[in-house]
């Protein structure tokens, strides 16, 4: 059986190894940003990281698990409200709430998943939206957190994060960077695992995957719950940056779902790189077209539809089909063994 020993199965490639070196360098530069970037830039970068995280998570759900949700704002808002509630009433340090919020988000998504997993395909999507509405209307009933008009974080809690304003901004920046990297790493490692392989098998052919003994419901359920937990954590950081929360802002379908969907579709759905590329494009567009107001969203909608119809694999899919480039390889390839 010499064929077996002459070949090895690998997931990495030369491009991916080069990419990881470049990524580490880039990471070092980004970690050091508080020392070279201005205050406004730092804030923008923080926002970009959080959108990368949201986009990655939505892509994980829709692009890999086939769970097309238009209700992820439920968890963004849930995370935000949890942060405010825990910091204001339980006196927990805002940064320390994040791990708890991950757990809470995952926990609350369990009954949600049990209910809406009864809906199929597109009806599932609208079901997630109903859940987000239920969350929003419930939040508006909590008078301790300002009811329908919302509330701001008290000054003493803000001060507890760091004494100086720049200290707080740096902390928020690093937290956003950390959560984005955590999310990308989680999704990437999951997809490379046995479970991830199962997920991609389900995406390619649900019936065949079932025949191979993959428990589709459990796999999707797991993805949904983990994504909900991580989305809640991202949501908490988003509102830690904003310092103010209200039901309409926290559970906004435009901000936390529409933008995210456009990012993923334009960048390339079903790839790890797509959401990152999409976020960069999204912010470039936003910085240049922001003056247009609602017309900007209109243009974004048109671009997303054109991409979906003409190039459904998005920008990164286009690059990948031309060059075969894969910076985060999730597929396994058989290659001849090298002498070295």
């Amino acid at each position, binding site marked *: 059986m010499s064929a077996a020993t002459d070949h090895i199965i690998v997931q990495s490639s030369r491009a991916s190894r080069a990419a990881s070196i470049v990524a580490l360098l880039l990471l070092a530069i980004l970690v050091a940003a508080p020392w070279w970037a201005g205050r406004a830039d730092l804030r923008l970068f923080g926002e970009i990281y959080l959108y990368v995280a949201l986009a990655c998570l939505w892509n994980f759900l*829709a692009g890999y698990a*086939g769970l*097309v949700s*238009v209700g992820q704002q439920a968890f963004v808002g849930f995370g935000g409200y949890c942060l405010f509630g825990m910091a204001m009433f339980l006196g927990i340090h805002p940064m320390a709430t994040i791990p708890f919020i991950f757990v809470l988000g995952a926990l609350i998504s369990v009954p949600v998943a049990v*209910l*809406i997993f*009864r*809906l199929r*395909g*597109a*009806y599932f*999507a*609208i*079901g997630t*939206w*109903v859940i987000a*509405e*239920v969350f929003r*209307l*419930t939040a*508006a*009933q909590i008078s301790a957190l300002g009811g329908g008009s919302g509330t701001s974080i008290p000054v003493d809690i803000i001060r507890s994060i760091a004494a100086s304003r720049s200290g707080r901004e740096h902390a928020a920046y690093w937290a956003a960077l950390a959560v984005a990297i955590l999310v990308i790493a989680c999704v990437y490692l999951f997809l490379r695992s046995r479970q991830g392989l199962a997920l991609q098998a389900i995406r390619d052919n649900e019936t065949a995957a079932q025949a191979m003994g993959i428990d589709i419901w459990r796999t999707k359920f797991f993805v949904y719950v983990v994504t909900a937990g991580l989305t809640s954590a991202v949501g908490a950081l988003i509102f830690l940056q904003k310092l103010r929360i209200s039901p309409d802002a926290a559970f906004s*379908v*435009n901000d936390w779902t*529409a933008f995210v*969907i*456009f990012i993923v*579709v334009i960048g390339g*759905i079903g790839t790890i790189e797509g959401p990152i590329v999409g976020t960069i494009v999204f912010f470039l567009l936003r910085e240049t077209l922001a003056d247009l107001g*609602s*017309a900007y*969203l*209109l243009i*974004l*909608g*048109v671009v*997303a*539809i054109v991409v*979906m*119809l003409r190039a*459904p694999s998005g920008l990164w899919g286009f690059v990948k089909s031309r060059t075969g480039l894969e910076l985060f390889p999730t597929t396994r390839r058989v290659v001849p063994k090298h002498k070295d």
Partner: protein
Amino acid sequence: MDWVNAVLQGVLLGGLYALFAAGLSLIFGVMRLVNIAHGDFIVLAAFLGLVVTTTLGMHPLAALAIVVPFMALLGYVLQRCILNQTLGNDILPPLLVTFGLSVIIQNGLLEIFTANPQKLSAGALETASIPLGGGLNAGVLPILTFAAAVAIIAFLQWIFYRTSLGRAFRAVSDNQDIAQLMGLNKSHIFGLAMALSMAVIAIAGIFLAVRTSFDPSVGPARLIFGFEAVIIGGLGNLWGTLIGGIILGVSQNIGAQINPGWQLLAGHIAFLIVLAVRPRGLFPRVDG
């Protein structure tokens, strides 16, 4: 008496929700398409009604004569030019494209009409009511809306089961390839189904616009109400959507009676309870 009144008004409100639901149910039945922009098209029809009534000085109900054919045509063109390209085994393209349409319509309306609330004025019709005794009153407009919902569902039912178009709808829904072999051009049939759905949307939009004030952002909530009525009533059952609409309307009104902040929440909770107890809805279609 307040409670009886709440239920009565809720039943009538259910007629409006059934109008939201009927178009959604129709296109899902024919081509398994869920139009995320459904609610935004309802609002678009309401704004069209606004333009027609203000520029031509027409009564809103007379404006239906213009808005209905316009929306139907728009639906046909939209289906032939865009939506047909998205149909296939993958659910993602139709979902994302109609989601994109939703955002486009909302922001387009915002550009043209601003975020100010608008309303269609129907004169005396708005306040006219019929006393039912015991201090109960039923508004003429809600009764008219309810009657329209019943008439439209009966009409759709007739088209579906008694005409050659309905036969074509069902055949294409059953098996697209074989339907093509029978000389049916599925692109055209889908276009007609969307046109019909948009005609119902137009009627729903006008009734909505006369009943309450509206602005470009209220579409998604209409989609959700329609969707909830469809799921409560049972997939693929047009009369079920009327019952689903009524249950939703009554739940909302009872919720509002308890606490004004609970109106929408009560409707959603009724929906979630049905989903938990009867996931296929109260009156699912028996076959398939």
